């Protein structure tokens, strides 16, 4: 069995806002093993970014409250860790690539210096040695003339190059866990694929575990080993890539998969969408959060369904829905042609 890098159990994140308490992350549990890519998917506001940022202690503030645990390497709890402990872990053991590379790099420092700064925050080496390592890293992620380009400022880089620099920075200390928070959302479609490949390949080379946050199911299909589907702060379903794409259990997942427009099919007259709006996290509906939008909801859905395995012979395929497996398989066609697709899903 692969080495367990991260074990998140019953993670809760609550923010005090002027409108009331916002439960941004509600009872999220998952694991990450070495060499594995776990994708967290969900629409904006589903809590996926908050989940991963909380792992790095980036959501800490006087207005936030946390529950649950997130154990790194089996012992250290990231939720309870002191700020000093986290400083040693951030960048070194867990590194993060952010969504928008233009705003995520300091505008007034040279790209190379920003990477050097991270290396020297964790290792006692000379500036020159750190710069040599930085130039190597930049070459590895495909930045040409890296020695010169290290002296450039972020505004002198294109979007794709900036994101490559962010990746070089994230990989600079060979972290065991790499978190990528929608790293391709702000980029051109043509660059997206390249960046995805870089992330997947480089993390494979360094044998780290990757948590990939995205709302793009195409991206998920490309690189994920396992998938977590989040809705309104909760994980509604998780399983392997094949389980989620070919045997989705939760009606929200059906809707999500049904919303994917596919090149290999007749284009639909209207783009399919899930009717309704995600709930406000201040006044979340009682019971299942998806209930108000779910055409299959019944009385029992006012109770919170636990996240548990319901499919036989698939102990890691968990979901939060009261429908029986047979009912689901009978009904999910209603939401579209998902799950029983004839064309192959790229995986």
């Amino acid at each position: 069995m692969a080495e367990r890098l991260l074990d998140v159990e019953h993670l809760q994140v609550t923010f005090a806002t002027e409108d009331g308490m916002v439960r941004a992350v509600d009872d999220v549990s998952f694991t990450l093993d070495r060499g594995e890519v776990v994708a967290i998917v969900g629409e904006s506001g589903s809590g996926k970014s908050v989940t991963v940022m909380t792992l790095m202690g980036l959501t800490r503030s006087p207005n936030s409250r946390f529950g649950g645990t997130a154990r790194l390497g089996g012992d250290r709890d990231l939720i309870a860790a002191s700020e000093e402990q986290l400083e040693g872990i951030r960048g070194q053991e867990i590194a993060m690539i952010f969504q928008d590379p233009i705003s995520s790099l300091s505008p007034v420092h040279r790209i190379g210096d920003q990477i050097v700064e991270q290396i020297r925050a964790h290792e006692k080496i000379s500036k020159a040695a750190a710069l040599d390592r930085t130039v190597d890293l930049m070459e590895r992620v495909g930045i040409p003339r890296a020695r010169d380009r290290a002296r450039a400022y972020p505004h002198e880089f294109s979007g794709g190059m900036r994101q490559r620099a962010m990746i070089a920075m994230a990989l600079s200390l060979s972290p065991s866990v790499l978190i990528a928070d929608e790293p391709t959302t702000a980029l051109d479609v043509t660059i997206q694929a390249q960046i995805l490949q870089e992330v997947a390949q480089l993390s494979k080379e360094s044998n780290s575990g990757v948590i990939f946050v995205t709302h793009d199911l195409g991206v998920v299909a490309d690189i994920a080993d396992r998938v977590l589907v989040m809705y309104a702060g909760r994980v509604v379903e998780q399983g392997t890539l094949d389980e989620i794409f070919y045997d989705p259990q939760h009606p929200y997942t059906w809707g999500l998969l049904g919303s994917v427009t596919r090149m290999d099919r007749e284009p639909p007259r209207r783009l399919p969408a899930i009717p309704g709006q995600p709930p406000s996290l201040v006044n979340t509906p009682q019971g299942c959060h998806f209930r108000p939008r779910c055409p299959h909801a019944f009385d029992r859905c006012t109770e919170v369904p636990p996240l548990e395995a319901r499919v036989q012979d698939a102990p890691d395929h968990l979901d939060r829905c009261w429908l029986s497996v047979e009912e689901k398989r009978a009904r999910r066609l209603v939401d579209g042609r998902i799950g029983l697709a004839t064309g192959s899903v790229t995986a």
Partner: protein
Amino acid sequence: MARFVVRRGISMIALLFATSVVVFAFFELIPSYNPARAIAGRNANATTVAEVSRKFGFDKPIYTQYANTMKLIFTGQVIDYQDDLNVVDQFKQRFPVTLSLVIPAGIFWLVAAILLGSLSAIRAGRIADRAVMVAAILGVSIPVFLLAALLLYLFAYKLPWFPNTGYVTFAQSPTQWAYHLILPWFSIAVLSIGFYSRVLRSNLLDMVNQDFVRTAKAKGLSQRRVFTRHVLRNSLMPIITMFGLDFATLLGGAALVTETVFNLPGVGQYEASAIGNLDVPPILVGAMFTAFFVVIFGALADVLYALLDPRIRLTG
């Protein structure tokens, strides 16, 4: 860079010309303004006044008067009307006093504002923040003449810790120089400390939520380093522009209230008495003096800006 210097040079000439024309013309608009009468003295008769008027050229058309005055200023021969003193010499003599007052005060208010603004932003919403912000409002609101008088009353008269006005040159005794200037420095700095620390606090609080600050934290940098290298570094730009202009006007004589209350023989004190006597030459030279510094320090602030922020290029 050469282009930048040339363009700033041109704007300097334009500004000096505009300032001098406006100030000169302004006095022509004052109905009771008659410099000849002032020069001739209280008991002069009409013949004497006419005599003075002809001698000083006040009977010539205004553009001729302007041209003559400018010629006198730039050849260093212009005389004030109240005391028959050479105005340029007066500025030369008095400028070191103003420098002694303004430079240390400027350093003091900049350092104090950065420290207090940072403290306030780091402790945002807590007692230290509230205390600093209330003090800052007080500092901004209290008029300089009142503050200066209060300081003198409290710390020179009631508690004789500091000398009651006066000036000692740095060459005579550096300690006495500083001792005599502590209250004036403080009185000039208070307003700017209040204003700058509030501006800096709000810049810092905006900056804290920037994505690159989150990146800096995610790199595992210490909180201190995140703050100084990333948050503070990116928040200083507006402060620099403000400082350049405020400092320039103070050098040009805007410290006139402080200089008058503490009886410091600087350019501001000279300008204050000139204004009271409608004595045009010192006022005119003072205005041009200020305009000169505004252009110089505006350019310096821009250069510093470009050094601090690589996205900014120097253009005229």
